[in-house]
């Protein structure tokens, strides 16, 4: 009896320019037995996705060079003929991708797309049979009124439904292996929990093997049997999921596990200050017919951190931008005791928040130059000081953003926000685009700076654990409204609003056992949607 997946000494090289090439995967070996579940975990650039793609031979024709051997359900992927490979793809091994919207053809009904795939592998099946199979699998993955919704196009589905549809497509031909490449990264935390639960149930039901590729240790905890931690294209550690997450052997895995923010992390209590820096009363903002923020009132005190949590579309980003004056409120009142320049922002995307055509030093200096208060020497000196403050080498003044990593760029963004000596910094998802180890460093830096400079922070994020780490008080937002607010400990430990409760229940945890327990608890709380 051979294994379902056997990867031996796999190497993958991508040629970027005509001359140089990058080794994405370097001597990787692993196996997955039939019916088993393996988690492939790593930070960005670890080669985990490239590995997943290689299992289906998807690098063929792209110019990537692949070495070693890959056997999937008895097929030698690297040497197989095109036709044989096509039979494997979707027939015996199916794949679910990260972004469910772009992964479906926008022009065809979801059901037709599934039917098309079904007919590729069952050429004798009639159109009608294929359609009814599509409806069947859509029904299985929990699409309500599946026969009718099968005629909808992807953009008429919500994000979670799309991912369900993609999973349905994978189920259509009853594959023996399901490869899920970051299947929940683009989804909100509540939806993520549902999708993970679905995958779990399907595995139990069909007995198919699962290869789950993710950067999120919390995701693997409740979903796989074994885990393989990757770094720079190599395997760092492999073993049963409980062992690796509880007591990682390798330093890198340990760092990884430790860096994951925890919901139960207890933050040293701080003395609440009474001095109100900023007050918003009944803020509303409409975009066309949709109301992004619907009557939010809040206060920010000097020196405190206010966490704002919510899923996508909750209006948290719009709120954050209104607070610093980037977006004008449709109605409502915003009062602050400091000049506008003292309200600064740190942005989510480290790529788009820095002008690629200007050196980082100039980007940081920009507010100082615009103010026309200091002369050039003073400005440069101040920028160097700021660079040093955020943990960057002051001599990097003349370097350009593309020379830096995501975490470093975020530090530059923090330095720029600090330049006009602000009283309040709104951090809009400042770490969500970063790897987990980097996240921890940046969050640490923010805390440090706040302490040293006595700043107020508004920390906007979707990640409940991160918010708890930094916040004194927390607002929970849903559909543009604040559903619950209060001291962080109170909100996290004794949530009052059902939505807060559902959010907290959906957060993945590292402990596999607890994860299983929470799954059971969730079923009662969350409707399918």
């Amino acid at each position, binding site marked *: 009896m051979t294994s379902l997946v056997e990867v031996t000494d796999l190497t993958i090289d991508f040629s970027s320019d*005509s001359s140089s090439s990058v080794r994405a995967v370097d001597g990787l070996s692993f196996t997955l037995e039939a019916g088993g579940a393996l988690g492939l975990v790593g930070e960005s650039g670890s080669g985990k996705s490239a590995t997943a793609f290689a299992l289906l*031979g*998807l*690098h*063929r*024709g*792209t*110019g*990537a*060079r*692949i070495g070693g051997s890959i056997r999937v359900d008895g097929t030698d992927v*690297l*040497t197989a*003929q*095109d036709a044989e*490979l096509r039979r494997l793809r979707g027939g015996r091994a199916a794949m679910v991708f990260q972004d469910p919207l772009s992964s479906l053809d926008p022009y065809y009904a979801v059901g037709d797309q599934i039917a098309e795939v079904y007919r590729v592998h069952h050429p004798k099946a009639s159109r009608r049979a294929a359609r009814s199979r599509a409806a069947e699998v859509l029904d299985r993955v929990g699409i309500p009124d599946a026969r009718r919704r099968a005629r909808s196009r992807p953009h008429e589905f919500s994000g979670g439904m799309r991912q369900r549809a993609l999973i349905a497509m994978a189920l259509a031909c009853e594959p023996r292996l399901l490869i899920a490449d970051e299947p929940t990264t683009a989804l909100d935390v509540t939806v993520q929990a549902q999708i993970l639960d679905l995958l779990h149930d399907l595995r139990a039901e069909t007995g198919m093997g699962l290869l789950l590729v993710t950067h999120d240790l919390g995701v693997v905890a409740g979903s796989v049997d074994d885990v393989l931690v990757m770094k720079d294209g190599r395997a760092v550690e492999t073993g049963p999921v409980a062992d690796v997450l509880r007591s990682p052997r390798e330093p890198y895995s340990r760092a990884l596990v430790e860096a994951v923010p925890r919901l139960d992390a207890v933050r040293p209590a701080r003395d609440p200050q009474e001095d109100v820096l900023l007050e918003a009363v009944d803020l509303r903002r409409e975009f066309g017919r949709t109301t992004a923020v619907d009557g939010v009132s809040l206060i920010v005190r000097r020196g405190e951190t206010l966490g704002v949590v919510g899923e996508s579309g909750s209006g948290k980003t719009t709120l954050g*931008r209104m607070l*610093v*004056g*980037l977006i004008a409120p449709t109605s409502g009142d915003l009062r602050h005791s400091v000049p506008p*320049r003292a*309200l*600064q*922002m740190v*942005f*989510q*995307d480290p790529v*788009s*928040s*820095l*002008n*690629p*055509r*200007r*050196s980082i030093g100039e*980007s940081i200096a*920009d*507010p100082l130059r*615009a*103010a026309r208060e200091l002369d050039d020497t003073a400005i440069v000196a101040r920028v160097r000081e700021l660079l040093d403050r955020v943990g960057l080498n002051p001599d990097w003044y003349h370097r*350009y953003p593309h020379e830096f990593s995501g975490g470093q760029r975020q530090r530059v*963004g923090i330095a*720029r*926000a600090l*330049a*006009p000596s602000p009283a309040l910094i709104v951090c809009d998802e400042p770490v969500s685009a970063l790897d987990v180890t980097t996240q921890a460093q940046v969050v640490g830096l923010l805390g440090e700076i706040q302490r040293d400079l006595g700043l107020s922070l508004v920390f906007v994020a979707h990640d409940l654990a991160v918010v708890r780490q930094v916040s004194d008080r927390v607002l929970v937002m849903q559909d543009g409204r604040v559903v619950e607010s209060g001291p962080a400990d109170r909100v996290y430990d004794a949530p009052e609003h059902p939505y807060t409760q559902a959010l907290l229940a959906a957060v993945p945890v590292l402990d596999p056992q607890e994860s299983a327990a929470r799954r059971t608890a969730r079923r009662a709380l969350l409707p399918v949607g």
Partner: protein
Amino acid sequence: MSTEGRGQVWRRLRAQRAAVAGGAVIATLVLVAVAAPLFTAIEGQNTTAYHPELVDSAAGGVPLGSFGGISADHWLGVEPGTGRDLFARLIYGARISLGVAIGATVVQVLLGVVIGLAAGLGNRFLDELLSRTTDVMLALPSLVFAIALLAVVPAGFPRPVLLVLVIGLLGWGGTSRIVRAQVLTLKSLDYVAAARLGGSGTWRIARRELLPSLAAPVITYAAVLLPLNINSEAGLSFLGIGVQPPTPSWGQMLSSATTWYEADPAYVLLPAGFLLVTVVGFTLLGEGVRTALDPRAASRLRVGTGRKREEASV
């Protein structure tokens, strides 16, 4: 653009054989155009001297001798009717072609950037107005308007300058559309928001944050415009409203040559060939510049078919 960025662009440009070939053709042409007096001096001819003795007046003025009267004295033969030297007229024609095209491109780009910026940064009304105007500018047959404009301006106005202005004034639509789209994209980027938070006004943002990023797409588009402008100049001259005789221009020569394709094919083929080589040269170079400035666009197009390829497995 960083110095290193420039170096990279240059390297990528040089890596493309077609672009290098195009660049070489253009360089040669520019050289020939600049040194036209020298070349004609070597040949011993000029653009205006008539040679009635070299044409058969009774037969409509067809050049005597074969291939349009090619001889040691007249390297590319002579013009029917007048007997003027074709080599001299062709290389002097290059001056007009290149000069007008480059000048017009500069005018188009300047106008396009200013209008595109105004539309992208202005309020909704201004944007709508400028965008619809751009639509019409882009789609209306500019040749016709060129004719009308050229008819209005007093004849004393230097014709090449006039052509630069007319082609420029009628051809900014594409640039402005591209700049507007780019501005709308850039405007929503966080670094522009950051600049606003840092206290920069609209003008400062346009200058410091937007213009540098517009350089690449604008240069790319200018490289596309250049050959089009060469064709526009030739087209206007072809219709008889371009530069005026005795200044030679390729379009004008082609226009006179259209009836001669049976009696004196060389007279047609020479200016056509020069024009074609120039435009193809510029197009190749422009294509190269595009790839060099936006390597992502090039590599984005380098995707797999999923088909087995020999080199993939070895």
